[in-house]
């Protein structure tokens, strides 16, 4: 299976910057503006969150953005509408991140088909477990050239990491510490030991580190231990504080992270 994600990782081995934002936030129709600004500022990959009423793996910042987006009137249908013409203005790899229930209600096969039609590259469904995916949904994902991005954490056993790696394509999402999103900032020694332990496993799938990556310093450090890193809550805060000048604020933030 080959799509924009593979191309990215083939062409760039280090310092990959993946930025997360919540669809429909801060305003309902900001999606296109944010994608274009991220693309222009030099982000390598974009992760778009599908808002959900009960986001259990997320901390207060992303929870709040989900609630605002839902009260703005965002739905999965609307997200697809907003993304319908995305491939007319950018070729940046895009993954959707969403909890399983909204995807399940939409219909997993229909959902995957829609993603392919639009030209999306991967999905992160944190509460869709590996066994369920393999038994029920892997076929639909693969038939539509969508990478399923799995999470691993410091508590994930070596045996399970190998199993997840075997079923992964695209990249692995390395959760930096036992936490929800946006809970911690900074990287501690124990986390570095975990990154190095995973590096030594010689996995087939590239890896990005997420959770706790919030600025230039933590981004640089994470990049020393993986192919790149994911910034979520810190970016959502930027959006929250700059509703009126998103483009400029996004450009500044991304350039600062990249040290340019």
């Amino acid at each position, binding site marked *: 299976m080959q799509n924009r994600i593979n191309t990215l990782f083939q062409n760039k081995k280090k310092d990959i910057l993946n930025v997360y934002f919540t669809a429909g936030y801060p305003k309902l129709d900001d999606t296109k503006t944010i994608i274009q600004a991220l693309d222009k500022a030099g982000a390598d990959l974009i992760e778009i969150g599908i808002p*959900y*009423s*009960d*986001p*259990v*793996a997320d*901390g*207060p910042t992303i*929870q709040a953005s989900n*609630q605002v987006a*839902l009260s703005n009137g965002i*739905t*999965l*249908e609307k997200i697809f509408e907003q993304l319908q013409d995305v491939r007319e203005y950018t070729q940046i790899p895009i993954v959707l991140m969403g909890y*399983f*229930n*909204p*995807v*399940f*209600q*939409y219909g997993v096969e229909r959902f995957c088909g829609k993603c392919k039609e639009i030209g999306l590259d991967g999905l992160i469904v*944190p*509460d*869709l*477990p*590996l*066994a*369920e995916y393999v038994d029920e949904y892997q076929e639909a994902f693969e038939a539509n050239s969508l990478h399923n991005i*799995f*999470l*691993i*954490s410091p*508590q*994930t*056993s070596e045996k*399970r990491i190998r199993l*997840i790696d075997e079923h992964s394509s695209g990249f692995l999402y390395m*959760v930096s510490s*036992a*936490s*929800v999103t946006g*809970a911690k900032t900074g990287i501690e020694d124990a986390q570095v030991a975990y990154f190095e332990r995973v590096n030594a496993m010689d996995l087939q799938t590239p890896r990005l580190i997420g959770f706790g990556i919030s600025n230039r310093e933590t981004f640089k450090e994470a990049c020393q231990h993986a192919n790149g890193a994911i910034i979520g809550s810190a970016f959502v805060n930027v959006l929250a504080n700059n509703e009126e000048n998103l483009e400029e604020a996004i450009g500044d933030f991304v350039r600062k992270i990249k040290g340019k």
Partner: protein
Amino acid sequence: MSNYQINEKGYYGKFGGAFIPEMLFPNVEELRENYLKIMADEEFQAEFQELLRNYVGRPTPLYLAKRLSEHYGTNIYLKREDLNHTGAHKINNTIGQILLARRLGKKKIIAETGAGQHGVATATVCALMGMDCVVYMGEIDIARQKPNVERMKILGAEVIAATSGSKTLKDACNEAMRHWLNDPTDTHYIIGSVVGPHPYPDMVAKFQSVISEEMRKQLKEQTGKETPDYVIACVGGGSNAAGAFYHFLDDEEVNLVAVEAAGRGIDSGETAATTAVGTIGVLHASKTIVMQTEDGQVVEPYSISAGLDYPGMGPMHAHLFDSNRAQFRYVTDKQAMTAGIRLCKLEGIIPAVESSHALAALDQMKFGKDDIVVLNLSGRGDKDLETYIKWGEY
């Protein structure tokens, strides 16, 4: 093999599973691998049974309610879970889970609570075992269930307000899950109902199954026959009903009646009658019937009873509904309060508002004069005095 028990993949029919983020996999897997083994262990059973007998006060009586029976022209037996220590069936499960948590080497306990009954039952067993206890409770529930909040604090628990989402039970569950994500290695999450990822629904049902185990024995002694014609219980998440139904699931001649809270009516938009308005979905890591929008967003339920105010139900109950093994009935606030007050007058028992929903189902049903009806009186009404007072009409 029973059609109503969980299968090896953690499903009841098409309901169940463990839709958890990978970060929780080690915890849930540890439980899954160990719970049956630990529960089958003789020493564990000895300790569990001893505590149920001498600390909780089991077996609870099976009481032939003569005046209530006369009112309905049949034979109604009340299973007196209201007489348990802490006032409800909830403690059967918390005793079991805390003993299990200790055997898994856990040091800290977290729990969610709606009305506070499960929170109190958890705080109680944590005090008993000398373990740290954190209870998550929706900010709105904290305001409307003040006495239970104080009970938990007196027992040494820390009560943390869930301020996310709708600030009620479902959000307290979310916050407890998040806590577990943040603190996974030495913490056990005592879920209070037959909900959550496999193995919780099965584990909690097994701990609560003592209710129907006793019912069978007591029925045999009192009526000469182990099986009744009807077993009636209320369902929010469904733990008391799971316990009351458990040992009758394969006796198809026993009519199982699950009573949900209709709130202001199933078509009013203010209801907690999940099977009436819900559709299949995933809530709190389990595939079950869920009150939700077409877009898959969970809808906030409503009931006068905080213990039934839940937008889903255990996967076992979803399966009992789907397979028609149990009949589901819907009782409004008004019907429940009327039935609750009737029990006070006829039998001198003030029931929990949750249990009053089960009582109100009697008004919707027709019984023969020789029928044997067992109703699980899941809790006592001390905690609901304010609700009864506000309601008036007594």
